[in-house]
């Protein structure tokens, strides 16, 4: 149960101290109906292709995950040791629901699945991710993505 007031110490205090920015505005972009959208996944689980650079320190960079990647080729190098990894080990869809997303596209519940997905490493201060995230927006538009599902860990 990931509500701070129901977590035992010391985890509650640890999570309460994590950087958590507030924003003065509330951006909102509308779009076509879900059945016509092209959807990309962006994870903050520190996911990468096997053989790609592992995540290090608190850098705000991201890794590219091709849409045809297989579960055996996707690994996790997030720096934190304070979340469960055994769910991901047993079933990658617990963290990166690409199989489920493809099923929704096959059933025409969504329009299509992006050619590329991405992962940041969520222990990073969010402000460190901002430049990379804004650049990433152009890559997503180039892939004709008009819906992004952000998945934490």
């Amino acid at each position, binding site marked *: *149960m990931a509500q701070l007031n129901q977590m035992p110490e010391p985890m509650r205090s640890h999570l309460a101290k994590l950087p958590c920015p507030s924003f003065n505005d509330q951006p909102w972009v509308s779009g076509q109906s879900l059945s016509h959208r092209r959807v990309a996944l962006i994870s903050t689980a520190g996911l990468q292709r096997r053989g790609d650079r592992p995540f290090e320190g608190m850098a705000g960079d991201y890794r590219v995950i091709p849409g045809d990647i297989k579960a055996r080729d996707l690994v996790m190098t997030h720096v934190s040791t304070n979340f469960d990894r055994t769910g991901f080990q047993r079933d990658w869809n617990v963290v990166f629901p690409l199989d489920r997303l493809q099923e929704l596209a096959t059933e025409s519940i969504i329009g299509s699945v992006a050619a590329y997905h991405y992962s940041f490493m969520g222990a990073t201060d969010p402000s460190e991710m901002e430049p990379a995230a804004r650049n990433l927006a152009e890559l997503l538009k180039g892939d004709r993505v008009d819906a992004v599902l952000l998945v934490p860990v």
Partner: protein
Amino acid sequence: MGALAHYLEHEGLPTTQISLIREHTETIQPPRALWVPFELGRPLGGPGNPALQRRVLLAALELLDAPEGPLLVDFPEEIPEETAGPDKDLEGWSCPVSFTRQTSQENDLEKLQSAFRREVAELRPWYDLNLEKSGRTAVVEFGPESASEFLGAFGTGEQPVIQKADLSLATAIRLAAQDLKAFYFEAATARPGLASPSSGEFNEWFWQESAAGRILKAVKERCLKEEDESLKMNGTLFLVPVDQA
């Protein structure tokens, strides 16, 4: 997570997200968020439960059809029961090995390291069988013997050689520790006739009963005493969970 939604939406991309810590999402106020009552590390719910994963995914995506926001919606289902694999008979979880019993009266780090090696050797065939069967492993950089020799040496005061030239010592230690835990989990869950452990059961065994857990705590203590800031950060944050320290 919510900050990324702000950045992308500012650039003209509609976003929706899963939220694991409701209080953080309430502060950040991303455009659209679905809060789920699952443990950290499992944003889509349970492994081997595609029906639940689909319901979570759909609930998050359907927020994109809402006319206005910001939205923070609660997923209506509770934490799922663990789902065992098709070849498991749900007899429950038990510790695969417990060499620490043999060394529980010892303070000698060398004897601990010896127990650690035996533990790794006993688990190795189960890891191999699991890999052969599933075709997948979460081990990234360090094989079991490489990780155990490297961490065992560092934890017992030696200065081990880093086999990966492109990794700093701090990164190598962190990745080796992660790989070691991945190896232990995959080996432990490959044994026949037993249900997979919950995350809590696995953590209890690994951190409280295995020699590997004791070695990693020794590695943490040494990191905390090092001058290097990256090693200190390893010791403070990246090796032992805050609820197992």
